[in-house]
């Protein structure tokens, strides 16, 4: 009898080309390599310099999302991309994909979107696969029971040339979530609370598995929100055991197995959940029933409190003081009722259909407060079409928000969608680092529901006041 294994250990073990030894890391096989315009150019250059070919173009899949425009006239109308260097990067990806035979969902493709939205959406991401991308939010794909993690550009080159990576086996961390989330509290609040609990470096060296009945009760969009921000706790990967919710989500998707292949896949996928007796290196328990809508107040995602809470006081901590000074906050202050200038709904964290539905549910029949700039950016063109089919775009536009084409947009502002200096932005994205959304921008991370409530009131608002 073999030793009981966790979900992670099962996926890891089935992808060992060569197991690790004391002297050498494991050679780990990669089933799906997603690439985008920002972290791939130098890897293609490395291939060319060494005269290497791309080993498995059929397992490699490209899109453009980080530096692409979100204004319709720049995507479809022939208007030039505002930033010349970004336009060059987009053209270089087109050339590289052509030269190396990689399928690319280009700027005008109806299936284009943020790489972590379209992988699952197209059915490319599947339970038990190893998935990598030169982007730290690759952890998102773990929501389907894949082992998915971000890599650097040198490693992108390694996967290009060999379809493998040299990796030391990480440790395992179980985050057990129990209890029912109350109304107005969702997956974003849950993951922010988890990061607040274990800290921004607390998951370093580990793969997280989110478990418990609360997680099992989440839909796939919500599970992806949770796994997406694993990296914000320092964990390169977060995983959730595949179940009927996962299988229902994948059934019929463009690149998911079909017919007999589907039946075979289902049989394999049902073997993936961890064995009951499997042990984790660490475990953390979270009471979901006690959670409230959460919001960050500082310059990393671990600096988080309930929307109605008070900023903690930490004496003798110059870094904490510097962070609060950047944010224009004081220790002991409340963030609720603080004026808001910008609201951003989108990103690989919260740019899926259910996120847009949540934001729209609060905006229906209401207006964005005077002086607030609200930007809604769907995570993919498919999300955009589905939202429009439901009339969500009308709700946003009639409320006074901007409705854009898909992309990473204001999450990192590479494409020029920026928060002005000193402005407060309630953002459904994943990072509130200094300058992340623009030089001097002050980011308050929150759920789509909370973001919409803040847009309506023009102030930091607990969404439960409006639902």
């Amino acid at each position, binding site marked *: 009898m073999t030793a009981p294994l966790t979900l992670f250990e099962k996926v890891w073990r089935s992808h060992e080309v060569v197991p690790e030894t004391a002297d050498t890391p494991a050679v780990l096989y990669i089933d799906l390599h997603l690439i985008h315009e920002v972290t791939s150019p130098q890897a293609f250059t490395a291939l060319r310099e060494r005269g290497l070919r791309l080993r498995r173009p059929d397992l490699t899949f490209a899109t453009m999302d980080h530096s692409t425009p979100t204004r319709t006239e720049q995507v479809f109308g022939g208007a030039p991309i505002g930033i010349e260097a970004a336009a060059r990067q987009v053209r270089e990806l087109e050339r590289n994909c052509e030269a190396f035979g990689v399928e690319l969902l280009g700027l005008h493709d109806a299936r284009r979107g943020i790489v972590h939205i379209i992988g699952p959406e197209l059915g490319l991401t599947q339970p038990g696969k190893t998935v990598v991308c030169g*982007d730290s939010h690759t952890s998102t794909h773990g929501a389907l029971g894949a082992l998915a993690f971000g890599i650097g550009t040198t490693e992108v080159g390694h996967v290009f040339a060999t379809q493998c990576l040299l990796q030391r086996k990480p440790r395992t961390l179980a985050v057990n979530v129990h209890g029912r989330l109350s109304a107005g509290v969702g997956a974003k609040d849950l993951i922010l609370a988890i990061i607040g609990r274990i800290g921004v470096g607390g998951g370093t060296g580990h793969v997280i598995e989110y478990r418990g009945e609360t997680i099992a009760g989440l839909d796939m969009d919500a599970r992806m929100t949770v796994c997406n921000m694993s990296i914000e706790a*320092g964990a390169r990967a977060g995983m959730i055991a595949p179940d009927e919710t996962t299988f229902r989500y994948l059934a019929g998707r463009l690149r998911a197995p079909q017919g007999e292949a589907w039946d075979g896949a289902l049989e394999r996928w049902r073997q993936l959940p961890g064995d009951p007796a499997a042990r984790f290196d660490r475990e953390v328990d979270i009471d979901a029933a006690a959670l409230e809508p959460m919001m960050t107040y500082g310059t990393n995602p671990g600096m988080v409190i309930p929307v109605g809470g008070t900023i903690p006081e930490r004496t003798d901590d110059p870094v904490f003081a510097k962070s609060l000074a950047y944010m224009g906050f004081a220790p002991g202050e409340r963030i609720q009722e603080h004026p808001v200038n910008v609201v951003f709904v989108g990103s690989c964290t919260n740019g899926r259909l259910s996120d847009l539905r949540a934001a729209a549910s609060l905006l229906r029949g209401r207006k964005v407060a005077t002086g607030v700039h609200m930007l809604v950016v769907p995570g993919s063109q498919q999300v955009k079409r589905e939202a429009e089919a439901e009339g969500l775009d009308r709700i946003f536009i009639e409320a006074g928000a901007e409705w854009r084409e898909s992309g990473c947009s204001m999450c990192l502002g590479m494409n020029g969608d920026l928060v002005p200096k000193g402005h407060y932005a309630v953002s459904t994205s994943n990072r509130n680092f200094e300058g992340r959304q623009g030089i001097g921008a002050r980011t308050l991370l929150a759920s789509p529901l909370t973001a919409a409530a803040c847009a309506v009131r023009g102030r930091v608002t607990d969404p439960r006041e409006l639902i």
Partner: protein
Amino acid sequence: MEPIRTLRSRTVVLAANDIDTDQIIPARFLTTTSREGLGEHLFADWRYGPDGAPRADFVLNQPQARGCSILVAGHNFGCGSSREHAPWALSDFGVRAVVSTQIADIFRNNALKNGLLPVIVEPGAHRWLIEHPGAEVTIDLGSSALTLPGGETARFPLEPFARYCLMNGVDELGFLLERAAQISAYEARSALA
């Protein structure tokens, strides 16, 4: 990659914890398609004022930082984005090692592939280094030890394969390419499964 065995330098200190890769190299500089020239933008928003002039109060702009190749930083250095532009920017600026009590996983991997040493030391030695900027220290890969000016040594963990690659100037891709037969065998095996 040039082999590295020892490194001797004065230190420059950035004591903040959780220095993320957006600080090391802000996203607006990621539109480059090359690895070169990023040192100019290292810590851009901390280093330069709104007018683009260097801030005199930022440590890397001060005369004593010149020529220092060892950066001592607070806990959890390099968290956030996977951008390899972060180690590229540090290397281009002249940094050869980062010393902390914890270094984020992706940054550490990226650093190792660029000959930038991630050095994790115990809190005691770290505190001493934070409190003594400009100290002349030696990092020796063979013994995995950082030697303080007084002769005391702090051991640091270094994955054996990474050490081998650094000390011999071996790049990992060459090693992986030599596993081609095993990779093909795996592909055949998993296609049958």
